[in-house]
């Protein structure tokens, strides 16, 4: 489903490439942890997926299509097919839980009837139905990240990209979020998670891809974190 073919990414004014000749394939329905030290290139890899960045060299193929060659006006349609989750949640704090999740649909002109049907279902899945009308700024960190997950899954994406989704959460909430992502994966979505959560990676026994200095150094089915945290 996703293929990185000899991908190199060099940021302007950087001393070394963030990604150096990376080749990686991720199949449909897979759950992949990206691990490695800070600054190893995990986030760069993810940004190439939702085309916030373009590769300096090489190809990023999604369902066979070269993401880098998409026209500007087609980029929004790529992003509609995936859900992105961040460490800092990226919510609108003064708006309600419902509004934040609905936002992803309203921004793409989904009819109101459909919004009213899909948002509660997504909130149900992340266990936040009872907080529908709370403002996001009133929620705990774990709850806010669950809102972000609900927003990512509300349009049934084929791919979920999560960049350190548990970075700001305590272990209990971290586990809950990873469990949620695993559930979404069970429902058919491909999930790619960059993380430093050693215990969870070790416990979940999923595919682990380790990146160091822009290169893939390890790729294991049912792998472990492999670093001292």
């Amino acid at each position, binding site marked *: 489903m996703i293929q990185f073919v000899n991908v190199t990414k060099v940021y302007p004014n950087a001393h070394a490439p963030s990604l150096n000749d990376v080749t990686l394939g991720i199949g449909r329905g897979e759950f992949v942890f990206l691990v490695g030290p800070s600054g190893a290139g995990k986030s760069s890899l993810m940004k190439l997926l939702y085309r916030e960045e373009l590769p300096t060299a090489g190809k990023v193929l999604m369902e066979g299509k070269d993401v880098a060659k998409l026209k500007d006006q087609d980029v*929004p*349609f790529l*992003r509609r097919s995936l859900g992105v989750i961040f460490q800092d949640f990226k919510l609108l704090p003064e708006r309600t839980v419902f509004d934040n999740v609905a*936002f*992803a649909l*309203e*921004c*793409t002109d989904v009819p109101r009837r459909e919004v009213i049907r899909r948002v509660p279902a997504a909130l149900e899945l992340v266990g936040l139905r009872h907080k529908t009308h709370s403002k996001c700024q009133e929620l705990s960190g774990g709850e806010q990240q669950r809102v972000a997950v609900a927003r990512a899954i509300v349009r049934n994406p084929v791919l979920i990209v999560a960049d350190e989704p548990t970075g700001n959460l305590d272990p209990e909430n971290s586990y809950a979020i990873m469990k949620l992502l695993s559930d979404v994966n069970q429902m058919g979505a491909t999930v790619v998670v960059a993380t430093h959560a050693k215990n969870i990676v070790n416990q979940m026994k999923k595919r682990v891809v380790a990146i160091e200095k822009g290169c893939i150094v390890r790729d294991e089915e049912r792998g472990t974190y492999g670093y001292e945290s």
Partner: protein
Amino acid sequence: MNLRAWVTAARDAVRSMTHSPLMSLASMATVAVSLLVLSVMALLALNLKYATSTVEQQVEIRAYLCTAQVPNTKCPKDELKEDQKQAIVDKVKKVPGVKNAAFVSRDQALEEMKKQFGPQKDILDDLDGENPLRDSVKIQALDTNQVKVIAEAVLKIPGISDANYGQEYVDLLLAFNRAVNIGGAGLVLLLIIATVLTVSNTIRLAVYARRREISIMKLVGATDWFIRRPFMMEGIFLGVVGALLAMALTGYGYDRITTYVNLNIPFLPMRPPGEVLGNLTLALSLLGGALGGLGSLVSLRRFLKV
């Protein structure tokens, strides 16, 4: 694009304006001042054009008949008799290109002058009953461009001492008209740029205030047009309200000026307010809206590059 999306965009635009009302008001006022100058220029140009065409239509030749009071080598020494005067008028009528020729006695001419002077006709009382004017033939040409040729032909008719036509005034007015049009075009261009920059600055602040929202919109797959929509609406709104403010002031001023001119300088032709203000309001609102929209686009271009 459904109706609800437009309503949402309009709500966002209003929310943005009420979020920083002083900034919005300042922006509207600046746009209004620019468009005010623009509308004054437009009215000036319209009236000059009107005056020129009115004067052009009124161009007529005055051929003055010989009189003993004003000695002229071309003229007989004796005063012309009535039948001679009539013969001259008949000859004038036969000059090619003449549409109409009518005899105007010196007494009639004085009466006409009194009428033209209107409230200031008292000046003529200083003449102490003397009439300095001469008998003349009022000639209208079939074609305004022919007045010079006709005037030359008429001058050759014995009994006519000289002929005048208002071409020099028309030329002067045309030159003035051109100068105003060229100078006005330059000024209008500057004002248009100023208006676009004003709106774009306001919108830039609005965009900055909502940069987080915009980045999320981009992430969830909103198109650039979807993101632009509320800001465009805000820009257009600022432009249109600015235009309406400008037109309220211009309309009031023009109404006062035309009333004053009609009362005090009746021979100066001006377009009646009812005839021009409606169209000008419409044109200025469209221009204000377009410039506001353009201003928004200018400031959004940079923000939407991801």
